[in-house]
């Protein structure tokens, strides 16, 4: 049981919303991961749909790469649509 692989759990809380990462758990296979996720993460009606993904299948960016990956975007304000004048009737932009 100690060598069971780790799975990442994604829950969709309502139809129409996206699945969001909510945690991880150990399970021997995909079916068990799904059932464990149901029991651990949806017992207070948090979800209508579950995805489980083997954690090993996720490729993550490294913290030491963050300068080259993310800093160049910091001074490019023209990429943000902040120069448009929006009519008052338009909400939630």
């Amino acid at each position, binding site marked *: *049981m100690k060598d*069971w692989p780790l799975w990442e759990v994604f829950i969709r809380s309502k139809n129409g919303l996206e699945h969001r990462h909510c945690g991880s*758990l*150990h*399970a*021997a296979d995909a*079916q*068990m991961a799904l*059932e*464990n996720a*149901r*029991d*651990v993460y949806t*017992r207070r009606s948090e979800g209508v749909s579950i995805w489980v993904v083997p954690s090993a299948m996720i490729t993550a960016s490294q913290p030491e790469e963050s300068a080259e990956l993310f800093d160049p975007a910091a001074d490019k304000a023209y990429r943000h649509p902040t120069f448009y004048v929006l009519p008052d009737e338009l909400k939630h932009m």
Partner: protein
Amino acid sequence: MSKALIQYICTVADNNLILGQRLGELCGHGPNIETDIALTNIGLDLFGQVRSYFQYAAKLEGGNSSEDTFAFLRKENEYKNVLLVEQPNTDFAYTILRQFLYDVYHIRFMEHLQQSNDETLAAIAAKGVKEVAYHARFSADWVRRLGDGTKESHRRAQQALDDLYTYTDELFHHNESELNLVNEGIAVNTAQFKSDYYQTIHAVFSEATLQVPDQKYFLKGGKKGIHSEHMGYILTEMQYMQRTYPNMQW
């Protein structure tokens, strides 16, 4: 009529009550945290159904009775659960096999109870049937995993099946209070899904590479209030608070 109905409600609810108590014993002792939560969830589902049954029984009985007097203040021979559900949590394989043998029965029972002429019982069944469908799925998956798993898990699963199979036949016995209620369309006639029950569990055992025991004699007694030696210990623990501090409330 009302007395027979109360008896029947106890016959039905006591299975859930005692199995729920057995599962509750495992709280904090599951093989890992996910399975621990899963088994406790199942126990809580069963207790939720028990509360509905006993609230109904208390209403029928009237007087000072309540869901608590039914759950905690009866004597051993007044509990009518089948022997299967009082069997101990010998190991994880026993816990799973006991659950599976009950769940496959329970889901069929609830499906039929939904058609009962008694509206309250039908409503309790309609609410509980989805919970039980999940229990049956959970336990069947684990039977397959243990049986068709490692050499050790297979050995333990087979041992549990060999020991527990003898308690399955009692699920389909009717005590006297039930027979009249079956004829009135209130109680479930369990005989009608007995062969389906055995076909279903045997199919899962075959997938799990487990041998069905060659059983000639089956044990029974619980439904008549004649229990195994385990029952007294269960009740001692379960009833302790109400016996020591009568009428205590949370």
